[in-house]
């Protein structure tokens, strides 16, 4: 481990924390920036043992695009679900779907599962022991295969690109 890595274990986390600090205190003064930098440096250092693996983002722009898509889907999902809830409940066709996974890292799987839960009428319910399937509950889904394809194309692939491709 280089000195640099030892002193700055999470090069992405540190500036993020500084940014979040400034958000928290709701002001951008020199004093707060200094304090934010200090915290951004110290907190990762102190918590290094709890988060030993280094996160690297391979494609930052894909990440931004992903976030955009996700936000849009979330808004849409809300309307979809709202309509379902307000509508005739007897017409709903809930279904469980086994989603085969291509992503392998903890972070990517977790982000995928989260994204699925946040978006149209789906909740990720269980990860199989071998981490190869994610069980999804869909509130109203006629065609499971389309859903699987959509998820894989819309969420899984970008996540794989961002976090897993070297």
């Amino acid at each position: 481990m280089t000195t640099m890595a030892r002193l700055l274990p999470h090069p992405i986390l540190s500036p993020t924390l500084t940014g979040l600090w400034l958000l928290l205190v709701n002001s951008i003064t020199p004093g707060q920036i200094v304090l934010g930098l200090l915290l951004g440096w110290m907190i990762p250092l102190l918590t290094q043992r709890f988060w030993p693996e280094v996160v690297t983002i391979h494609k930052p722009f894909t990440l931004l695009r992903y976030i955009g898509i996700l936000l849009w889907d979330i808004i849409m999902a809300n309307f979809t679900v709202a309509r379902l809830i307000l509508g005739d409940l007897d017409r709903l066709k809930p279904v469980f779907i086994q989603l085969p996974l291509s992503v392998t890292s903890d972070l990517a799987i977790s982000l995928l599962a989260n994204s699925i839960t946040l978006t149209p009428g789906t909740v990720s319910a269980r990860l199989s022991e071998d981490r190869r399937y994610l069980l999804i509950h869909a509130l109203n889904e006629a065609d499971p295969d389309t859903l699987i394809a959509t998820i894989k194309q819309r969420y899984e692939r970008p996540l794989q690109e961002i976090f897993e491709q070297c």
Partner: protein
Amino acid sequence: MLEYLLSFLILTGAIFTFIGSLGLLRLKDFYMRLHGPTKATTLGVGSLLIASAVFFSNRDAGLSLHEILITLFLFITAPVSAHLLAKAALHLNLHSFAKIPIKSIKEKASSDTIGIKH
């Protein structure tokens, strides 16, 4: 203009909060009920938080964006909660209108050795 924006955000937030809980109340089985709050409240609370940010940025001198932190936080945590709840419900074999696929053989086998791994 600002007032309209605020009103829109507030109403959206409130309506989605309402619908989320309505889903919780109305839907027929646990897995379905899970969809109500976890989705609707993200947008519901999200809108309200943005409304708050807009309101205080406008009222006080500087930008007030710290509400975004709560949104961010909820976006990270709400799906995790939902996931764990679903997992718990599956574990308890709660009644479902959707057919629950049986656990893989591997999962079943490993459940006999619980408690040893640390």
